[in-house]
């Protein structure tokens, strides 16, 4: 059955309309979850507020367990789902950059739009910075192209690389997530004094 677009069950035009409404839903959920607060995002790095970590962990968990079970009962064919190709070195450097950006600005790209939509000026400045960054990246791209494409590993999946069944990996991931939930609660208590309202 799924993925709906690749299988031709939804036309690319409808794809945009559906994505629009899902995007609005995502934004509302982020806002309601308190993700428009830069204190909350920065809290992950200082240890006093781990909600963001737990929410994203839960989202990944829900999506992966859902995909696995949907694939098992035949609602989706995960072989047809787009997998972002891995470029190892640029992913590491890019990850460090975006981490720095989040801790400096207090937003990730998605939450900056959420916060800007409820009128936060720092979020608008953050979006401005994002646009300037995109522009600069495009301008210097010829200089860094070689590095950008280095460490190309193709469309790999972590459980294939580790040589285990997807379900077994998912189980390990779930156990890891439960431990992280617990540790994050402990950390929150420990660093609660860092919280400033």
């Amino acid at each position, binding site marked *: 059955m799924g993925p709906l677009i690749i299988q*031709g069950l939804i036309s690319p035009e409808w794809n945009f309309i559906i994505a629009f409404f899902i995007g609005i839903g995502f934004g509302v959920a982020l806002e309601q979850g308190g993700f428009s607060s830069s204190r909350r995002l920065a809290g992950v790095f200082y240890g006093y507020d781990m909600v963001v970590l737990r929410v994203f962990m839960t989202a990944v968990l829900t999506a992966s367990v859902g995909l696995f*079970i949907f*694939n098992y009962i035949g609602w989706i064919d995960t*072989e*047809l789902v787009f997998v972002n190709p891995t470029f190892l070195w640029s992913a590491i450097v890019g990850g460090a950059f975006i981490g720095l950006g989040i801790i400096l600005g207090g937003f990730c790209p998605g939450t900056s739009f959420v916060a800007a939509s409820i009128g936060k000026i720092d979020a608008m400045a953050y979006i401005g910075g994002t646009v300037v960054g995109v522009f600069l990246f495009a301008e210097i791209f010829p200089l860094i192209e070689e590095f950008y494409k280095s460490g190309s590993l193709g469309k790999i999946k972590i459980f294939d690389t580790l040589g285990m069944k997807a*379900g077994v990996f998912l189980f390990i991931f*779930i156990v890891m*997530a*439960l431990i992280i939930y617990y540790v994050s609660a402990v950390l929150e208590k420990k660093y609660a004094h860092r919280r400033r309202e």
Partner: protein
Amino acid sequence: MKINEHIKAKHIYISLIVFALGVLVAVLPDKKHKNELPPDKLVLKLTGDSRFITAEQLAQAIIDKDIKYQIIDVRTPEAYAKYSLPGAINIPLDNLLNKTKSGDYEWEAYLNPDVSANVLYSNGEIHANQFWVLCQRFGYTNNYVLKGGLNNWFDIFMNPKSLSPNASDDEKANYEFRNGVRSYFGGGQQTSSTQTNTPTKPIKSKKKKQVEGGC
């Protein structure tokens, strides 16, 4: 209720449910789906002629004992028992979707060969074409249809038209070839009652070997 300062009872319950879910996904087997050919690509293939193999090509392959082709009779077992082409196995159209107990398609190993190709035939072309379309949807690409089916086979090899006096060299050569084929297959006016054959029973659900190991 608090278990300790960090965990409440509801956290324990939710964690247990999530853990149970984890155990479930760990024991479920990874399921691979058959990738079906999208309808638009199927239509493109249908409009072309590339799925056909002519009676002459097939006859030549049979005479040469060419192992490249596996001939598949898609008619009923009764029709197959009365007459079939040499070496043909019988997979009736109605049985194409049969599954084994383990849930695999029974005939997959035959219909999705790696190096050889299948030639499908029925009396006309319709049933063989239907068979071919289903195979395409499953992504089995090494299947061909005998053009004109058995009817055409009989027309050109067993009841050939006599050659006109002003036939071209090509037509003469073709006529010679068809006569050759006729004598190879026992010649003359074959009727269904004179040539019966012991059906070649295919071994069911021959599993394709999985590639083992690798990098």
